């Protein structure tokens, strides 16, 4: 067991290091910058007042009662958001250690070498505990080192503890899914869905029906009331993490390797796959369709809360002023914010489709297909086509969902046309990201991770920009600086052409580079 643990650790330590480094620096960057931006309590109280609106609550969760101290501000704006990243970290590592290893046949080799299942599983658990503990420790030490008055030891401890708990929750869920589902791709897809839908669900219910929000683990974080009441009792639900681990162990103990509890075996007629595009589509179909369903759902859940804005505004004098007559302006503004968020989420499916191309390369399929006289340009081109289609449909379906779910709400004043225009307005971002993805794949088979980091950067900047009015200097590097915010503003055709054009240029470069480069 010890040897296997050491082996797994060696295999994953760089990835774990970079994740922890990234999460910790992103988190620890914030308290000092908040302190600089809003040095006095009066500054923060003004900020708090502007933040008590549904758009912000949808993003960050409800605002705590009481003073908006530096600590409260930090936890309110960062904790829920960072939880997504922490969850992603745990899903990826857990999946690579469990189902991915099993799919690759490595577990089989290991188990034949005098290492028991208990040993393998213990190593998987220990690694999860270890990495989350290190992350929590780094965060705790970092937060302690600031010595801000409102960020006391109890609060810092609780912040670190919830990170640990949330991480382990998704680590456990992933290991459990690894026993239930037939392949690593399925595990990643399903747990990622839980991670993202959990966030979307919390966003919708926090605004519309706060008592229902408690089903989502993100809401437990809000309920901890970090740096004010410190309701440590809300750490208790995170016990589910270890429960998942136990369930996973019970399933893993008696299961055949390569088998799964849910089989998903569909017996179909033999398909006739007559072209490379068809092949590429067959390979990415499940991925694309499930993302599209998710986008529709996210759009609908956002749309469904629009009706509650009225009552929300009713309670708040300041918002009433901001919103003007009838609160209509505010709703449209809120829709504009939602569209940016939906677009950023909708950029994930095109990138995942492009990732399939890399996977085909890694599995030596491209090398093999090459001997069928399928050109590299065609290989990449077909995935680009699928990625663009997936990207457009993602935006379109999310917008359509938003429209459909808000049909019953009176006085929004947005037509289906407005939503469609919005989908087209943000499509250049899909071109840009797909282009960047193609360019990176064309350069080298290991660089694709950069486009994911860029997506995360976009999310972060849009998110914080929305909250804090972040310096425009950060936004300059994102397409959202140039594209107008529909439906508040009319689409700017020139900006669309510029962003989309950049994407197309990158795409062409990518295709040319990919044609020439060595396959991995």
């Amino acid at each position, binding site marked *: 067991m010890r040897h296997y643990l050491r082996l797994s650790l060696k295999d994953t330590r760089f990835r774990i290091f970079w994740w922890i480094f990234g999460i910790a620096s992103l988190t620890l960057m914030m308290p000092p910058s908040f302190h600089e931006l809003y040095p006095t309590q009066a500054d923060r109280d003004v900020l708090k007042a502007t933040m008590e609106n549904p758009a912000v609550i949808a993003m960050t969760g409800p605002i705590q009662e009481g003073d908006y101290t530096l600590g409260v501000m930090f936890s309110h704006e960062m904790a829920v958001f960072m939880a997504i990243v922490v969850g992603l970290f745990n899903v990826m590592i857990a999946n690579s250690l469990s189902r991915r290893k099993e799919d690759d046949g490595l577990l089989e080799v290991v188990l034949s070498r005098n290492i028991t299942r208990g040993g393998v599983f213990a190593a998987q658990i220990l690694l999860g505990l270890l990495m989350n503990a290190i992350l929590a420790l780094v965060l705790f030490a970092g937060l302690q080192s600031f010595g801000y008055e409102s960020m006391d030891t109890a609060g810092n401890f609780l912040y670190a503890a919830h990170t640990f708990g949330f991480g382990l929750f998704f680590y456990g869920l992933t290991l459990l899914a690894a026993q239930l589902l037939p392949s690593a791709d399925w595990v990643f897809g399903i747990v990622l869905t839980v991670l993202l839908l959990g966030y979307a669900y919390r966003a919708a219910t926090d605004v519309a029906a706060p008592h229902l929000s408690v089903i989502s683990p993100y809401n437990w974080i809000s309920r901890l009331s970090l740096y004010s009441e410190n309701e440590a009792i809300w750490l208790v639900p995170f016990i589910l993490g270890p429960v998942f681990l136990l369930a996973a162990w019970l399933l893993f103990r008696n299961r055949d390797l390569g088998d799964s509890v849910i089989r998903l075996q569909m017996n179909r007629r033999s398909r006739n796959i007559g*072209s490379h595009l068809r092949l590429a589509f*067959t390979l990415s179909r499940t991925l694309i369709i499930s993302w599209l369903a998710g986008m529709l759902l996210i759009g609908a859940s956002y749309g469904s809360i629009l009706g509650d804005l009225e009552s929300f505004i009713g309670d708040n004098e300041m918002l009433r002023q901001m919103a003007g007559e009838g609160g209509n302006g505010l709703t449209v503004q809120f829709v504009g914010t939602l569209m940016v968020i939906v677009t950023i989420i909708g950029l994930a499916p095109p990138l995942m489709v492009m990732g399939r191309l890399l996977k085909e390369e890694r599995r*030596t399929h*491209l*090398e093999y297909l090459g001997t069928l*006289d399928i050109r590299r340009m065609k290989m990449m081109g077909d995935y680009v086509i699928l990625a663009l289609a997936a990207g457009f449909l993602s935006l379109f379906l999310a917008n359509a969902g938003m429209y459909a779910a808000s049909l019953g709400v009176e006085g929004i004043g947005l037509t289906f046309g407005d939503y469609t225009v919005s989908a087209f307005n943000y499509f250049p971002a899909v071109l840009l990201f797909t282009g960047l993805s193609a360019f990176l794949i064309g350069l080298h088979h290991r660089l694709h991770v950069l486009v994911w980091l860029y997506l995360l950067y976009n999310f972060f900047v849009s998110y914080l920009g929305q909250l804090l009015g972040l310096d425009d200097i950060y936004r300059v590097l994102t397409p959202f600086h140039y594209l107008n915010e529909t439906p508040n503003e009319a689409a700017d055709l020139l900006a669309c052409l510029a962003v989309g054009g950049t994407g197309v240029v990158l795409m062409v470069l990518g295709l040319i580079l990919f044609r020439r480069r*060595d396959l991995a």
Partner: protein
Amino acid sequence: MSVLELKGITKRFGKFTAVEEVSFEIREGEVFGFIGPNGAGKSTTIRAIIGAISPTSGEVRLHGKPVTAQPDYRKHIAYVPGDVQLWPNLTGGEVIRFFMEMSGNADTEKMETLIREFRLDPKKKCKTYSKGNRQKVALISAFLSDADLLIFDEPTTGLDPLMERTFHRHVLSAKSEGKSILLSSHILSEVEKLADRIAIIREGKIIETGRFSELKHITRVHYLVRTPEDLAAVGRMEGVHEFRQEGGEAEFLVDADRVKDVLAALKRYELEGLETLPPKLEDIFMRYYDAGSGAS
């Protein structure tokens, strides 16, 4: 007329030279064996031929023209990788059909014959296939294609002996149709049986090319001698290897260039029988292999 010609192919990965100045040609209707120890550079050479990687220097020519000048040269090639990885969620039949569609071939009758002869169940998903079954899918697809150059990278490592024979039969029948075959293999008996000419590669360099009969000079001759006398003195001669004598029988290998001396020495003994066993590819290979490990 040469179908495929490699001219001084060199491939470096960073500082490491995987393949250096590799040259050989394959003629029409010829089976060309490509042998060498693990990591010698066989797969790298093949990947340069099929265009998965581009050589650092050197040229690959097909039908007399450099492949860089013929963007569609791969339509003349069918390839079976050493480690066949298929699409886990497609069935074997779907993969074979896809390959046929892509090479514009619709001979379903031949397909069914091949599937029957290789005993493949085409309705199963590829992820449920054993290694041998995955290889069969790739082999069937290759034999179905109209390509006139078939490239096999260690094609039989997962096949049982019966299937191996089926494979050999199809290689020979492809050859009789005038196709050329590049066969990289570790199984020497297979290369010996099928190949008209061979190339031996070690540490990225071709160390020998030619007809099997021409390579005999570098082999060791295997002698079986019956004699009542003690031949220990012969066993100690230079160029004599693996000497064994039991009762009235002695057995040993002699380097080809030492045969004359050894035969002269044997004249001095009373011999009841002298048998020469046919040289084997294995002996050629071992000699280079020994030299390689001895040097390093």
